């Protein structure tokens, strides 16, 4: 799959107005989104790349291919889970092993829905390649994949697959859909206690304690469209045409443009 997108920066004072403009343009109410985003980095065993030896039963061509593969790119990838506002700031869930039968259950059952259950959190793996270079089109186009993962703890599986957990953050924003284009007006929130944990959080702090990545509070407007088959020139063209159409429509409000390619580099060095 390919993702084509255009970006714009939206200062905080324009945010409310733009929300209304987008609601009018798309004829829908904004859908508020809160997402946990875990960043994983692919790891390579150090000092082993380029090791060659006597070819026992490998053909020379195979060996070259393997070496090429070994020196291929490694990437960062994100694991995204949708959360709700109620998930933030909930009290730590009482471990039910410690609270055995006989104690009063009433207070625990009083608000079972408000507690965040990491074990039930759904996740999806979202991979984005570095944007394609040298395309004539004035949109950011990049290879992507998106796959649902099992609920609960993903770290064990991700480790086995070759990924290490690096850090995590939260994205808050509003989603619109117009003419097959998803329009996401969002900003990044950091956890108040920094990112020194080596594991994803089991609980979430109160939403108001989250700090802004961009101190001014400005938002990023991303308009994107996903194309099933990136090799199909016809649909790729249709997609960029849709984006250009949106860019024209939004011109009086914001200027959507291509992003700097290297700023979207997902390769792990």
């Amino acid at each position, binding site marked *: 799959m390919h993702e084509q997108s255009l970006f714009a920066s939206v200062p905080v004072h324009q945010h409310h107005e733009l929300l209304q403009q987008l609601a009018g343009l798309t004829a829908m109410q904004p859908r508020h989104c809160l997402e946990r985003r875990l960043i994983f980095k*692919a790891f*390579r065993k150090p000092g082993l790349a380029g090791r060659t030896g006597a070819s026992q039963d*490998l053909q020379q061509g195979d060996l070259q291919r393997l070496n090429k593969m070994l020196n291929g790119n490694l990437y960062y990838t994100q694991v995204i889970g949708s959360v709700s506002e109620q998930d933030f700031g909930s009290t730590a869930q009482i471990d039910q092993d410690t609270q055995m039968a006989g104690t009063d259950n009433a207070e625990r059952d009083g608000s079972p829905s408000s507690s965040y259950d990491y074990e039930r959190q759904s996740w999806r793996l979202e991979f984005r390649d570095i944007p394609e270079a040298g395309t004539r089109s004035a949109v950011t186009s990049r290879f992507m994949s998106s796959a649902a993962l099992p609920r609960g703890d993903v770290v064990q599986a991700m480790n086995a697959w070759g990924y290490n957990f690096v850090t995590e953050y939260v994205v808050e924003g509003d989603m619109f859909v117009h003419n097959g284009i998803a329009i996401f007006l969002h900003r990044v929130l950091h956890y108040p206690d920094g990112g020194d944990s080596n594991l994803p959080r089991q609980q979430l702090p109160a939403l108001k304690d989250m700090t802004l990545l961009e101190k001014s509070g400005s938002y990023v407007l991303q308009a994107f469209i996903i194309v099933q088959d990136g090799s199909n020139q016809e649909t790729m063209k249709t997609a960029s045409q849709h984006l250009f159409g949106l860019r024209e429509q939004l011109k009086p409000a914001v200027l959507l443009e291509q992003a700097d390619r290297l700023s979207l580099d997902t390769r792990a060095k």
Partner: protein
Amino acid sequence: MPITGVYFIPSNPNSSTALSTVTERLRAAFPDEDIAPIGRWALEQKLLRDTLGLLPASSTNKKPPNPRYMQFLSLSHYPTHGFIYTSEPADKPPAPNQTPTGPVNGIAPDHSPAPPMVMTTIPPASYGTLFQHFTYACQPFWSHRFTLAVPNGVVYDVGDFRVRLGDVRQTVPTARVRGTLVEIEWRGPSVVEAIPVAREDGSFGSVAGAGGIDLEADSGIDISAADIEESDIDAEYTATASLIREFWARLGMEGREAILIPGVGSEVKERLRRWKKAGSRTDIGRDDAEGEPDPWSGADVARQFMEVLRFNR
């Protein structure tokens, strides 16, 4: 999740497979049963290996590390999810006190030199996407070796057993025959079947004694959470394994066996633990049995299939 055993009978690339022999023996061994196909089944496995392990070891280097595998499996009798079975990383990343999710498995102590494997189940839509992702973005450590498929297997019911037979064909990189798979499933009464599946919200259906729908009706055993211990499950697995072995012995075939392999039964135990935990709660008992299907069903048989199909080349 029924208790199963899987056997693989390898064959030479140019000779015929053992499929017809197994079918004949099945008929001969159980003359009283009506051995007629009751359905079809299919399997696909994609095997990836760590790219580094494929390189020939240099003469100066010490013993190469254990090979690592990633296996993708899809089974037509578990259509709600696919399975990924991956070797644990040999040198773990600096993750502090990574507590293993399950306790040490008591069914079959892990004696194999290979690192333990991690089982993951994923929605069907993610099956192809994730495979593509690993072959695209993880080339330095995952390399697709081959794809195996049982395109049209046959299902038989033999007494309390259900038998799935099928020829394994390699489709990638070159098409060739690999052998014959036999899955033997115990369909008699079992404690394992009696443990209810946790629902979406983590609650359970009304358990025995609550007067609701009998979730245990299928197995015919009336139990409650307190009656079962993990050791009972181990015993159940061991006992059923001997039944399956007995069944297999009646066929008199030689094959690679996978029954009590590491990890088998861990999902069942996890389910039991959740059930026991939930049993102390009071807010259970909304009796809508249909929810999302258990994402872990079939993990045992998937393990067994992938165990016998983990070829080096």
